[in-house]
């Protein structure tokens, strides 16, 4: 006899053996929080945004702004903040839309499309964070450095002068430090979103199998 037929017979016999939840239990249940992957991507993006915003508020005290003014970066910093927040808000909005859009009533083709879209949004977001961090840290580095060159005491300046090899060493070291820093950020985001994305991509592959 076919294996599945044996199972089917037993399956039918089991019919009434399942637990039964009451109306009240179900009613309570539907208001509990959902744990689907896309929702977590959305939630994490908000938490992360709050984390950086709060960190900024604490770090950007008066002394910080004075320092920025000194090295002529006050306007630049303000612009960076505004643009940064605007872009982050845009991504949060996108995550929210993905969350709303991915719905379990869709057929598998639509679901696949939406899963791909969510993955793409997250990847763009991580790309944006890394590129913007790289660009801003280079700008800050340049201006800070420039400021110190200009303001060095003339007598001492001679002893600070770099020859070619020292320049090379300096640039090399800075590049390495920045790269390590970016690497850490990249790793952090890979871990944060990677776990969720991995599950999503696994689902995607399973849906693919269905289509073939």
């Amino acid at each position, binding site marked *: 006899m*076919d*294996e*599945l037929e*044996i*199972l*089917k017979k*037993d*399956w039918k*016999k*089991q*019919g009434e*053996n*399942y*637990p*039964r*939840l*009451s*109306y009240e239990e*179900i*009613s309570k*249940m*539907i208001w*509990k*929080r*959902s*744990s*689907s*992957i*896309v929702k*977590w991507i959305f939630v994490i993006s908000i938490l992360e945004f709050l984390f950086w915003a709060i960190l900024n508020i604490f770090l950007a005290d008066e002394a910080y702004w004075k320092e920025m003014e000194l090295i002529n970066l006050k306007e630049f910093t303000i612009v960076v903040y505004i643009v940064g927040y605007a872009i982050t808000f845009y991504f949060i909005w996108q995550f929210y839309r993905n969350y709303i859009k*991915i*719905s*379990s*009533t*869709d*057929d*598998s*083709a639509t*679901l696949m499309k939406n*899963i791909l879209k969510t993955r793409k949004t997250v990847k763009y977001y991580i790309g944006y964070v890394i590129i913007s961090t790289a660009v801003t840290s280079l700008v800050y580095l340049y201006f800070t450095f420039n400021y110190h060159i200009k303001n060095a005491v003339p007598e001492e300046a001679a002893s600070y002068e770099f020859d070619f090899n020292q320049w090379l060493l300096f640039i090399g070291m800075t590049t390495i430090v920045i790269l390590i820093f970016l690497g850490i950020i990249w790793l952090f985001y890979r871990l944060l979103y990677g776990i*969720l994305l991995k*599950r999503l991509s696994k*689902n995607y592959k*399973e*849906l693919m*199998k*269905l*289509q073939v």
Partner: protein
Amino acid sequence: MDKELEHQFVTNLEQNQNIVHKICRIYTNDQAAHNDLFQEISIQLWKAYPKFRGDAKFSTWMYRVALNTAITLYRKKKRGIQTIDYDSVHFRIKAEEYDGEAEKQLTLLYSAVKELNDIDKALVFLYLEDKNYKEISETLGISEVNARVKMNRVKTKLKKILNP
């Protein structure tokens, strides 16, 4: 969302909850995971309910939403170890005629099903639910021919798991 809609939905779900329990049975290994998935499916059903237009039967619509949740949207906890929960075995022994040999075979069959991937589990589930290929194809959003081919592959896979 208004109270009337909620009442309608909860009543419907309460009457058809067996479907969800059965899906949880196929997709989870222990009671905690079973409850988790049940809750997730209920929430997804409720979220999708305003879009349910009543042109299909509530239960038919439920199959699709619930399976989609189990296959794609549900974040499973560690799925590494495949064990048969003591409770679920126990729960089955209640069947009227106790026959050691048949019982053993059934346990093996159930654990073989647990080893299938999510999509294959969905096919097995719909098959066990006595759905014909037309209904299977509609629920999963694939063609009827495709459903047939897939079903045959699942049968082969099961045979391979059972007789390695």
